[in-house]
């Protein structure tokens, strides 16, 4: 079994409105594909299914698409749910 760790999930803009929170700490496998991590988060907040095709992760402040990439996570890592940006 892959060991689990506690990561901090941050929600912004539309994803924060849907989840109803700005951050939470969750327990996840320390080796997990990005899309599987998204599925875990979506299970906690089913409303997020609406934005699956629009969001991207920032893992330790680096962008990661919701795909097959394997994430190696440490407890305390920060994972942000990033809806389409609109700065400028």
């Amino acid at each position, binding site marked *: 079994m892959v060991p689990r760790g506690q990561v901090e999930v*941050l929600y*912004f*803009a*539309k994803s924060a*409105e849907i989840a109803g929170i700005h951050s939470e700490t969750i327990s996840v496998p320390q080796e997990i594909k990005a899309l599987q991590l998204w599925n875990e988060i979506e299970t906690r907040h089913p409303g997020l299914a609406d934005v699956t*095709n*629009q*969001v*991207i992760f*920032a893992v330790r*402040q680096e*962008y990661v*698409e919701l795909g097959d990439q394997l994430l190696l996570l440490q407890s305390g890592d920060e994972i*942000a749910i*990033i*809806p*389409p*940006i*609109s*700065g*400028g």
Partner: protein
Amino acid sequence: EPPGKDMNEVEEKSKDTIKFTSEKLSVDEVSQLVISPLCGAISLFVGTTRNNFEGKKVISLEYEAYLPMAENEIRKICSDMREKWPVRHIAVFHRLGLVPVTEASVIIAVSSAHRAASLEAVSYAIDALKARVPIWKKEIYEESSSSWKRNKECFWATSD
């Protein structure tokens, strides 16, 4: 003229100034930050809030950012600009929170010895900022509705 010919070059370090603030932005303040006696050119871009979107009247806008990451992404953009053009100082200010119509949401200022570098660099900077810096704008319409916007430059989501 090669940069090595500029006088005092070693005496003045290039600097990047990045600031997020809920205060009103000042074009003078941002342009002052990039002034240099070695430079003949300062190019600036000011993004201002428009009063309309698809026929709906916009009353104001609200910005939020993923702050440490947004600053890091802007630092990367500054670094990219320095690789591409011989620019001296760069300043990027972005406002957060409520921004009334006609006020500035973003100001980018770049100085360079000759004008082509800063003109091209400032154009690159606003394009890159819109494509990859985690900042969100919510438009607030007269009819009490609101909408999170997306930049067409956002690199992972296409308009639907």
